């Protein structure tokens, strides 16, 4: 699993593929205050991107990938 769902935190790692999107949305709906940790994430599939853009959860940790961080910081604020 490229996303590890903890109690109040979803930890993204490496490449988060298309198949994670549904689980991500469900988790975010169930945990409206859930935060996202992107530190070890290098890329998220567009399907996950649109989920994050729709829900706009709080980002607990920005991605270390500079380009991804740039994208997400503008899109998720």
């Amino acid at each position, binding site marked *: 699993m490229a996303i590890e769902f903890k109690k109040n935190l979803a930890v993204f790692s490496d490449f988060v593929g298309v198949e994670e999107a549904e689980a991500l949305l469900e988790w975010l709906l169930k945990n409206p205050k859930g935060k996202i940790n992107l530190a070890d994430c290098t890329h998220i599939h567009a399907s996950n991107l649109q989920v994050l*853009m*729709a829900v706009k959860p709080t980002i607990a940790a920005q991605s270390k990938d500079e380009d991804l961080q740039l994208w997400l910081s503008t899109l998720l604020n």
Partner: protein
Amino acid sequence: MNSLLEQFLSEARDFLQGIGEKLMQLESDPTSTPLMTELFRFVHTLKGNSGLFDFPEMTRVLHASEDLMDAVRNGRVGYSQKLADELLEAMDFVGVLMDEIEAEGEIGKNHATTATELAQALRSLISDSKVSTPVAEQVSIDSFSEDGPAVKAISWDELPTLNLAETVAIELYRCAINGDAVFWIEYTPEPECFFKGEDPFFLARQVPDTAWRNAILNNTASSLVEMDVFSSQLVFQFLTSAPAEELDDLFRYVPDQIHRIEIPALAFVKPIGNTDESVIDDDFINNTLLLLENDDLDGVARTIKTMLELSAPELWSSSALRWVLQLIELEPQNKAAQRLLLESLRTLTPPDWSTLTHSVQINSITTNPVISVDISEFPETLLRDFHTVINAQREILSLPANTSGEWSVGRLKSVAVSLIGCYRAINQAHEVEAIDAALQNALAENSPTPLLTWLESALTNVPELTVTEEDPQIATIFPVATQNEVKFGRRVEDTTAAATASKTLKVDQDKIDRLMNLIGEMVVAKNALPYLANRAETVFGVRDLAREIKAQYAVINRVAEEMQDTIMQVRMMPVSFIFQRFPRMVRDISRKLGKEVELVLEGETTEADKNIIEALSDPLIHIVRNSLDHGLEQPDVRLAAGKNAAGKLLIRASQESDRVLIEIIDDGKGINPDVIKHKAYEKGLIDEATLERISDQDAVNLVFAAGFSTADVISDLSGRGVGMDVVRSAVEKVNGTVGIESEVGKGTRLYLSLPLSMAVTNVMIIQSNQQIFGVPMDIVVETVRVPSIHIQRIKQKQTTVLRGRIVPLLSLNDLLASNVAQLPNEDNEFATLIVRVHGEHVGILVDEFRETVDIILKPMTGILGGLAGYSGAALLGDGSVLMVLNPRELI
């Protein structure tokens, strides 16, 4: 290039030709459903095949063609001339792509746009008839605007609203002014793109040189719960200064989801900031404008800089002033833009650049006569205007004088003024003096002639308009379409055989066979020449002629042999032709048997005559099945015997001089000679005495005996007793031999030895009972003369001892049942031909040996075909018929 691609290209060309033909036929019979269906099938298959490779351009066009054909087939769209034209054009394009793939192995990047346009043209044919044209039109406008020259056709209100930071905007503006096009890209992935394995976000991250980028979520669902995460609702937007080709390449798979606009430099000039207060009053604006009119750019810059120091930098007016400075620096001649920007300070609203037209820019050029520009560099519109004015002046000058017979001074003067204006507009102010001089002359003469003469001579120096007198609107909107038409039209004419001919040629096998027969007859005819030389010498006594005939024969012989070799090579096929089916077969059978098999194929490139290869196919399958079924053990048995669980089956082809050797080697349990012996005895194949004294090797060879089978239960794989004897007779039919070696517990090696080609047979001619016969050289071991005293009689059989080995002797006359004794020579020696039959040496007594010859062996047909003792007949050089014996059957 891999063989799959090669095959695709060769097939695709056939399809293209087929499509072309069907379209032609449809033209004469537009309602034919079978033709239509066939055409659809062609396009459909071709599209499917192209999808195997990474040629998105080709697949895109073919896909559109397929959709169109499907619509035609279902009667949704009527067949029309236009439709055929579009399809043919698309197929020509595919042909061009294939040429490129063949030459370079890939498709150039420059085809992406053409592919999209062709696909859209084809699709528009479908939508035309559905009367849903608005969408189609929208799309086509977008696509044309993508093209360089057509960018000018975009109106200002079509441009996206840009909200950029001033520094970014200034940078982009500088880029655009310096000639690096800045593109606005809007990428709207299709909703179902996730199911195609696409990741639009990944693609978006690859866009190079972005100055600004954004993503928008168009969520249509009313609540988050209803959101469909697997349907893309994203739109990506970019501003990039990357080259168009690079962008085309990046989006080559999704060109229809891209909206690209080249942004004019001025579009970036957009002051931003606080508009609530402004320290700038009308006086300042008027003064600066005045300085601008007087061409005092330094003065303007100074004034603005002073003003900037006085005002807060975040004000809208400050931003606008900074922009004016940029304009002055980068576009000093563009007074209109500078003026407009300054004027905007009065209202504190961004200037409307769309009011800036060409004429404004032209005016600004005329005030700068210092810059000398070649006239050919002027925009087309300007040249067009120039010619219109000049032509009008010429017309005025050619008008007849008025009723009073005098030319009015005013008319001449106005013409001169117009001309001066025109020449100034194209930066040829030096002509002004000449025009003035001509005007003075004209006034003095009171005639238009001097001006007219000057005009005619001057016009020759001005470049002609290259654009024809079309409606300029059409010319700018459809430049791509016309260009393509020309290109494809040319291609159709250019398609000469030399340019596009494929390297391989498909030839009917009958033709090759006929060629083969002809060369055979040629060899026979050639062989007649030595006889002729002989006759010339012995019968007619002309020795010189005989020598010349022989010399000529040598030449013809050489050419004929080379020719024969070449034709032989045409018929050659690699054994991979039959080997390629084994991996699948072995896999299926081993699964069925629950065995593990590692198949190794070697020497697949070894070549042999097509007939040999084809004759080999069935026997090989038999052998491989046998090896799998009887040879290799179950994994547990193998492990117990200390072997790998997976059995190894090696099929190897190699060439040994003029024969192909095929070996099938397994490391299975081998053949137990005792088991074979007893099975053969049970089946009555051997008698008790044989059972006792038969050697192990001979026992193993019994598997080739007719009706032999060791399996007790008949399975679908083997056990019907028609195994190895069928293999042997099939191999012997093509003059091959088969052998087997086996070691119990270690494995079995089966080998087939086959001639490379069966076209020409080397035979030895022998004489017996005053007739001549041929014996194939490949079974002749040696020729000896056996003295009659060395011939022993054992019971009724004659034998002799040759180098310590007992060789049975048979008389050919007896074998042929002619009941005549063989003739010995003067020394009472019998000519004996030692032949190898079924692995044993047998001596055949004949009357006399003759020469060996190459002959084309023709199998006997009809009633004679039943004579097993003869393998065929051949024509000799002197015209006589040579019967070729088949000692295997004879003995």
